[in-house]
């Protein structure tokens, strides 16, 4: 018989997989913009000083775009990492722990990142 010890309930992977694909497609655009604006354009190749960063984040749509980028990149990376871990057949209890740990990690870093964005945009 096929071992199904660590198989999450049916359907769970389909939805997560679809979210990974959708966030991946969004990231394709946002990560390129993020890389070009933060690391390529600018006098010395990107945002080189604190004042560069503050000036860049003054335009209202930049923090908004970076906020969407933050949420999508966290979602995509954590679902992807969970998929990689699933390849290693974690047991039921370990998978449950990973699920919760990743939710906490994602929410935690998401809130922290948004807080940082608000601080910079407000300066």
């Amino acid at each position, binding site marked *: 018989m096929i*071992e199904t010890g660590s198989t999450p309930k049916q359907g769970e992977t389909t939805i997560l997989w679809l979210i990974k*694909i959708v966030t*991946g*497609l969004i*990231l*394709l655009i946002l*990560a*390129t913009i993020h*890389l070009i604006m933060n*690391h*390529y354009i600018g006098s*010395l*190749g990107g945002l*080189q*000083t*604190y*004042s560069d*960063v503050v000036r860049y984040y003054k335009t209202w749509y930049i923090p908004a775009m970076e906020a969407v980028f933050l949420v999508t*990149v*966290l979602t995509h*990376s*954590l679902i*992807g*990492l969970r998929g*990689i871990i699933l*390849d*290693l*057949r974690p047991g039921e209890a370990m998978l449950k722990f990973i699920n919760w740990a990743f939710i906490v990690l994602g929410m935690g*870093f998401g809130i*922290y*990142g948004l807080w*940082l964005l608000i*601080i*910079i945009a407000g300066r």
Partner: protein
Amino acid sequence: MNTQSNFVVRAFRWFDPRGRSLSGWGFMIHRLTALGLTFYLFLHLIVLGQLAQGPDAYDNFLKSTESPLYKIGELSVVAAVFLHGLNGVRIVMTSFGIAVPRQREIFIGAMVIGLVAIVIFGIRMFIG
């Protein structure tokens, strides 16, 4: 089947280069860049916390990243983003049944575009 080995041994099997086809290398690149980028993402977010501490803290931190070693690291991240993103396009396409018989050619095309982008970024970072 091969159930006896521990997870470290099994994880290394993903990167066993023996007898791999081109798209098998695509899998390896995708997985390696995924792990690298995830690690970098959290490191990046933690380091950006310096922004909250004001201009002096952030500018001092930026000064410390001007060494060539940091630049190589930065270019590695840029390279990983391009390789992962472009290979990701192939994976999305084939996952929806689009151009599956042409996935090898799409992979070659994606890698060529990725390498060109990496070279452009590299020139900008190191030469200006």
